């Protein structure tokens, strides 16, 4: 009987908030269809995929693909490149949207703020293919804007930036910041708008400068948002992203631009080694999950901010 009562209560509660549940439904369906059901495909990491037998019917091969990968000549280079790019995107780029959000928050002119925000969001909506094509033209030897400017100042206008591995990471860093900084700052702006206005008034009465207000009120006010996003972001340490890197790769920068993500596409989609590619994807997923768990635990212990 108590169970029945509880069930009824749950049913009543769902019915009471039916509109909210209805809004939640597409989201749940999306994640079930595109995130949970495909997880079944991870079985491929342990199977010799057969077109005829399908995922479930294919023969088991145990940990063969994992052994092959970790003993391969490519593994250290791929892991090193992936970690470097992952660290750059997850850790080094992390403060930039926060700084932009803080700066936008300090703008007095509403119109100027709106224009700045819109301009900073725009790159996020541009296809990587278009962006990289523009970058290729800007950086082209002799005819690119940068090289022409260098030549104008008497320098060597023939530098082929995309073919030299030392320029790859700076280019990727600037490109990624430019593309995502505006979009990523939205969530921080939303968090800032949630900080109690009375705190700012009190700070003003106490004679706080704008910098001190930002340091002592705004930043602590969005601390939990920053913490949560960082914990989630850490999960991507072993994922360098695909599109930008794939498009920016040239034989000249391959030494630093070949990552696990590009390798997965090469092995899986272009060479049909589904099992091998899945096993690498699984390693990335597992490491990402462990990193999120670790970061969450550490954050809870040190800052009392955590996802759960």
């Amino acid at each position, binding site marked *: 009987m108590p169970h029945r009562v509880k069930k009824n209560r749950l049913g009543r509660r769902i019915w009471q908030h039916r509109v909210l549940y209805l809004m939640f439904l597409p989201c749940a369906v999306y994640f079930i269809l595109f995130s949970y059901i495909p997880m079944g495909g991870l079985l491929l990491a342990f199977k010799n*995929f*057969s*077109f*005829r*037998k*399908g995922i479930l019917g294919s023969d088991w091969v145990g940990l063969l693909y994992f052994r*092959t990968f970790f003993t*391969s*000549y*490519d593994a250290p280079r791929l892991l090193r490149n992936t970690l470097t790019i992952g660290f750059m995107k997850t850790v080094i780029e992390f403060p930039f949207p926060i700084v932009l959000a803080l700066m936008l928050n300090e703008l007095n002119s509403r119109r100027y703020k709106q224009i700045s925000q819109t301009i900073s969001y725009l790159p996020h909506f541009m296809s990587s293919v278009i962006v990289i*094509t523009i970058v*290729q*033209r800007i950086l*082209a*030897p*002799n005819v690119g804007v940068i090289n022409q400017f260098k030549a104008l100042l008497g320098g060597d206008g*023939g530098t*082929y930036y*995309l*073919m*030299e591995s030392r320029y790859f990471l700076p280019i990727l860093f600037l490109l990624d910041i430019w593309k995502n900084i505006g979009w990523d700052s939205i969530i921080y702006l939303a968090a800032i708008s949630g900080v109690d206005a009375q705190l700012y008034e009190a700070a003003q009465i106490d004679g706080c400068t704008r910098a001190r207000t930002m340091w002592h009120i705004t930043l602590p006010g969005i601390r939990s948002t920053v913490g949560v996003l960082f914990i989630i972001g850490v999960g991507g340490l072993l994922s360098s992203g695909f599109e930008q890197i794939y498009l920016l790769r*040239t*034989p*000249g920068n*391959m*030494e630093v631009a070949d990552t696990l993500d590009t*390798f997965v596409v*090469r*092995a899986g*989609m*272009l*060479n*049909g*080694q*589904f099992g*091998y590619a899945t096993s690498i994807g699984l390693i990335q997923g597992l490491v990402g999950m462990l990193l999120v768990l670790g970061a969450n635990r550490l954050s809870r212990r040190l800052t009392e901010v955590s996802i759960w």
Partner: protein
Amino acid sequence: MRFTRPLSLLTALVLALLLLQGLALAEQKPDTWIADRVVYVQAYVDDIGNSLPDDQLNTPVMQELKRRTGMQIEFLYTPGESDTSVMMAQMATGNLPDMVLSYLNNSTRPEFFIAVTGAREGLFADLAPMIKDTKVYSKYFDRAYLPADTYDNITWRKEFGGAAYFMHLSIEAEDTSTQWIPSQEYIGGMYIQSAIAKDLGLDVKSINSSEKLYELLKTIKEKDYKDVNGNSVIPLGPKYWGGSADALDYVITDLNWGISGGYNLTEDGKVLHEAETDWAMKKVEYLQKLLREGLMHKEFFTIDETRAGELAANKSVAIIADVHNYKEIIYQSEDWIPLGPISDYKGVPGKITTGKGGYGAWAIPAETENPEEIVKLMDYLSSKEGQMLMLYGVEGVSYEMKDGQPRLKEEVVAAIENGDSKTLQNTYGAAFDGSGVYGLSFILTDTQNTAYFGEARPGASSGTTFQRAVQIATDYPQTYRLVPGLRASSFLTELPEVNAKMSLLNYNEVLVQAVFADSTEKAQEIILSFRRQLEDAGVREFEALIERMHSENPDLIMFY
């Protein structure tokens, strides 16, 4: 009751009339009738996907095909993805239509490796019993009719024990592979601005080695020619279709030791990959020299197609590394002429041919109902009448018969010359010279245009479009060298584990990486690292296999 009898009589009369009409209709079906059916063909060929009529089943050609055979063809194509990826995804999900069609010039193509895996697992129907009584495809049983690669590795693979899952396409009825026939020749490779060649008094055929090419590039640089915008001309430009290391095949042919998919035989009979020899660094050092001295475009390997086209159109490069006589930029003016060709690494001239070849392949998924109807249709299409319909369209609509030969109407020739592909595809619906519905020429075999239709391709005898292309082939003839056998790399599939690792390595990419290295030491390091990758992937095992196969049958693998 009074009306019962007359009513019965009337009913019987009507039924009899209907029956007679039905019989008459049945009699109207031509001998070529096969079945009332639309065949859905998945094409893994982007040229087909980009040249389809708006309404495929309602073109004059498809209507006529339906009248003759009852059958029609609708091509399916997935744009925006690589054909290999689409093929793999469809095979993995079992989402295959009535028939599949793929590009396939020889059995070493990566997509064929995927298709063979599918065949091993029973994804495709065995076509051998179905082609037995056909007019055209029954010729495929004859070893002498098919190219060796087609017979041994595509259609009649030993591992399938007499079953045939893939039908190779575009097999010539007669082997003309060693004959230089100007009206049919594609001259690919380097082309130089004719004005520059004239100014230098250059005999273009005399440039037959990379060293002579280097001297020529230096002279061009010293002369400081200007392009249409007044900028200095770069001596050696990239491939017309965009940067690629493939163009090196024409530029440094004499430094290309690994002629058999990267492998070759040493003087003492050992099989090695080129990266394991000094030839790799010879290539790297030569290309570094060209780059260092500003003789070669810096984006030779990476430039996108649009900008590569601009370089040629603006005459910003003196030499295009790779283009052919059937590209507009070549045949629409007299501005460019062939340069070279460079001889092979032994200094021997001649265009290598492995003999008769094919161009595409088709297969029928095992789940397809009544596959024999599709086989009959494919056989009909490759008959003389079928080929005429596919290539020339419908008589009276796109061509007229003159002296027993089909000749395209003036308006069709004009559409071809103006590049009006949409009209060719929608109004007439035939393949013509490839500028119409390209897929319809792709699905033919036993081709013999000159014997059947008196011209190398539709419109060739009446159109003026390709006169210059043919003239180039006439003025710059080459000789063919027949070297039988397949590239060594095509046998990688014999060692699946080695192949799985090897297929992830890209020698050309490594070469380019070495070319752009800061120093010779760094370049050597890159090549050494690639050697270690080869060893890790199992190159020794593979080389031993090739040595053994070559000693058993010297014609099996292409070495020279």
